[in-house]
């Protein structure tokens, strides 16, 4: 590798690792389809995740049609409703959000932001995508098998998940488990790459404490995923054995459709422990990349350094660690030993501390900033508000005595949609508006973007705020229809219809966004290499979109942290991470 003179700055040591030789594609197939380039893999991940995510979006419309106007639509029956719930939840949490944040944004941004040419093992990275695609195809195939997809709810609790009477008992549940196992195998191959790239393949000068918070968020989430997915893997294998071989890991002896089942002696609680040992970290696997990305969006678009960078990093790490000791707060009504509730309620509420640190630091970053209300910034602000709202209802559900009456009501549905549905999706959308110019070289249309933001943001509140109220009334979740009850007033039904109308409107308005993505690809305004005047390395690439190997002949050298915005005395209001101190233009008369 060419030795870059770095002006006698002692803090930038020589390269510890020789430059890598990249795999150079020889044909159209290896360039665009079986590509080993992390950027192409990222786009493949994102498109696949979005495609299956659209299926889940349509499923939510069908559910809303049924909930808002029960008895009107003859093509939705009770079994299908349960199948829609299950597939909507599973797709959104795992196949959309996890894959998009880690496989999509992780693949695109990690090598660029740490100044690497590619992931450390591009071939394994490619395999990761193809196994993920296989998992998605297996999942999608359940719509076409006899009996349809499983209707066990996205938590797949045994014993009902594998007993007759639950829709999809024939094929759906088997394929769902197989798909999850494949997803975990595929994710592990990608996840190992992301972690090793961040730890061992940074460019010169890029210490961990100079990483953009986006990389910190994705990195921590990936480490968590590598430790949490094993529990889901084991639970899936055991449930598959229970279903296929007739073992009784999770199955007590019970009467199934009037006859004593062949099962006996297993523990349904064991499944719940395994599932939530994965399931709770999963919430933060989705949230931490969002935390990281939103920090960068706010800092860039408020032209101000992130407040308390070091604390932000430690808060991410602390949330990651704590999220492994809170899982049983999902199980307060499961019949586990009741006094466990004290422990898990305490740990759950402790997580509020690092989370609050992050929220305060975002607000303090905005404080007296030069705020540009660009579309990414609007989404970032929308995220902060939504996340605080969702977090506050989390305090209700984290406390045992308040949780017990609220369990299995629409309150829970409203809470988790706010905190891990709407909030991360806000960040996903903001991040797409932010990085689209780097990926394509063109800007997204601003007017359409602002329309998209306001409809999505206001719509999300019109949908999910009334849902909290329904939950407080005691309206149960997962019910096909409410029927005649005395405790649910008739106004609740009209509220349900209102929510459905808004949900369909907001859902369809996302087509504006899809149109924007497609239209701007060809007709968007040319963006140049650094339209947001941002400091991080991905905006400093010699080409836009970045070429194969990202950096041309020489890797960048990093001289500063990622947040040198509005530095006093500097002529420009941002100083890129790879700009040497002597190259920085100063305002005339300012002391260096």
């Amino acid at each position: 590798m060419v030795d870059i003179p770095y002006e006698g700055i002692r803090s930038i040591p020589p390269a510890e690792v020789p430059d890598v030789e990249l795999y150079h594609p020889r044909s159209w197939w290896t360039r665009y389809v079986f590509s080993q380039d992390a950027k192409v893999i990222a786009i493949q991940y994102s498109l696949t995740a979005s495609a299956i995510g659209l299926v889940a979006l349509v499923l939510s419309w069908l559910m809303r049609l049924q909930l808002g106007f029960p008895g009107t639509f003859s093509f939705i029956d009770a079994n299908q409703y349960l199948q829609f719930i299950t597939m909507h939840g599973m797709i959104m949490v795992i196949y959309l959000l996890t894959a998009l944040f880690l496989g999509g944004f992780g693949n695109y941004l990690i090598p660029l932001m740490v100044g690497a040419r590619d992931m450390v093992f591009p071939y394994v990275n490619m395999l990761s995508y193809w196994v993920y695609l296989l998992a998605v195809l297996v999942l999608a195939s359940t719509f076409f098998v006899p009996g349809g997809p499983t209707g066990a709810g996205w938590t797949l609790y045994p014993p009902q998940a594998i007993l007759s009477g639950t829709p999809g008992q024939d094929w759906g549940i088997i394929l769902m488990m197989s798909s999850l196992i494949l997803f975990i195998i595929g994710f592990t191959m990608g996840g190992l790459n992301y972690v090793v790239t961040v730890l061992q393949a940074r460019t010169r000068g890029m210490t961990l404490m100079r990483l953009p918070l986006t990389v910190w968020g994705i990195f921590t989430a990936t480490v968590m995923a590598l430790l949490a997915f094993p529990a889901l893997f084991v639970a899936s294998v055991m449930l598959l054995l229970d279903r296929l071989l007739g073992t009784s890991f999770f199955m007590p002896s019970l009467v199934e459709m009037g006859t004593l089942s062949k099962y006996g002696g297993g523990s349904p609680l064991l499944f719940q422990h395994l599932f939530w040992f994965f399931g709770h970290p999963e919430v933060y696997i989705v949230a931490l990349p969002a935390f990281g990305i939103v920090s960068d969006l706010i800092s860039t678009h408020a032209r101000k350094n992130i407040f308390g960078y070091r604390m932000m990093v430690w808060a991410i790490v602390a949330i990651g660690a704590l999220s492994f000791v809170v899982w049983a707060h999902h199980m307060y009504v499961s019949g586990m030993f009741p006094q466990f509730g004290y422990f898990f309620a305490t740990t759950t509420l402790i997580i509020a501390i690092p989370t609050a640190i992050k929220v305060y630091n975002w607000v303090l970053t905005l404080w007296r900033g030069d705020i540009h209300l660009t579309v990414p910034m609007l989404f970032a602000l929308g995220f902060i508000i939504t996340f605080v709202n969702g977090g506050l209802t989390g305090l209700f559900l984290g406390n045992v005595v308040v949780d017990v009456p609220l369990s299995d009501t629409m309150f829970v549905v409203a809470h988790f949609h706010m905190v891990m549905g709407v909030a991360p999706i806000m960040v996903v959308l903001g991040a797409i508006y932010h990085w689209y110019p780097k990926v394509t070289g063109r800007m997204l249309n601003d007017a359409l973007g602002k329309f998209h933001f306001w409809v999505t943001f206001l719509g999300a509140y019109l949908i999910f705020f009334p849902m909290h109220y329904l939950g407080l009334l005691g309206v149960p979740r997962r019910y096909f229809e409410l029927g005649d009850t005395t405790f649910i007033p008739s106004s609740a039904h009209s509220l349900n219809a209102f929510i459905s109308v808004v949900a369909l409107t907001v859902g369809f308005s996302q087509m504006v966004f899809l149109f924007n993505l497609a239209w701007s690809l060809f007709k968007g305004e040319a963006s140049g290499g650094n339209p947001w005047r941002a400091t991080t390395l991905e905006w400093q690439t010699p080409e836009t979109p970045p070429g194969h190997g990202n950096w041309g002949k020489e890797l960048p050298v990093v001289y500063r942290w990622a947040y040198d915005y509005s530095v006093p005395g500097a002529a420009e209001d941002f100083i890129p991470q790879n700009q040497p101190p002597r190259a920085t233009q100063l305002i005339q008369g300012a002391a260096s």
Partner: protein
Amino acid sequence: MAETVLTNPGQSPARLEGWRGIAADWASDQRAFKNVSWGKAMMWIFLLSDTFIFSCFLLSYMTARMSTTVPWPNPSEVFALNIGGNHIPLILIAIMTFVLISSSGTMAMAVNFGYRRDRVRTAILMLVTAAFGATFVGMQAFEWTKLIMEGVRPWGNPWGAPQFGASFFMITGFHGTHVTIGVIFLIAIARKVLRGDFDVERRGFFTSRKGYYEIVEIMGLYWHFVDLVWVFIFAFFYLW
């Protein structure tokens, strides 16, 4: 990636004490773990993840064993063999454990010769390791056959809790799969060593990257891990 270069420690500024020093070392420039190659780092992190998988399997088995109301079959009796008229408890498992731990010894020797770039001895020792591994899997197949002949099934057995057969086949099966994959990779890498791929830095078929003798050590990490897991399975399943 190319072989790693030792960082010159004289260059770094004054070292910090205590926790701050540890954090500073981890967060240092370019690499968190100095002198650790990408492949080795990746294998360690994979093994950490795999540890969680085996831990979940073993914890689930222990939960099932402790919560069942039906008596658990006595492993000493179930895994006993009659050899020459003598009834010897756990004899096959003892031999299997001995074979697998011996294979760790030959693997360690292969790593040693690999660093000396001793092509032939490295390859032979890897093949010996693979042979031990295959022997282990073979004996496991014998044990499975014997139990199945005696009526043990995943859903039940003649002596007690049905979770006995379920846990046994699942855990030993998952571990046996690990050993089998290890044997396949041992043979593949031994072939590369013997052919001199790492001496002439021949490029890989799929990855088009150069290989290094370090892959023997990375393979060794995996192999020792699989052995270590067996020690826990042996303790928790057969000796409990």
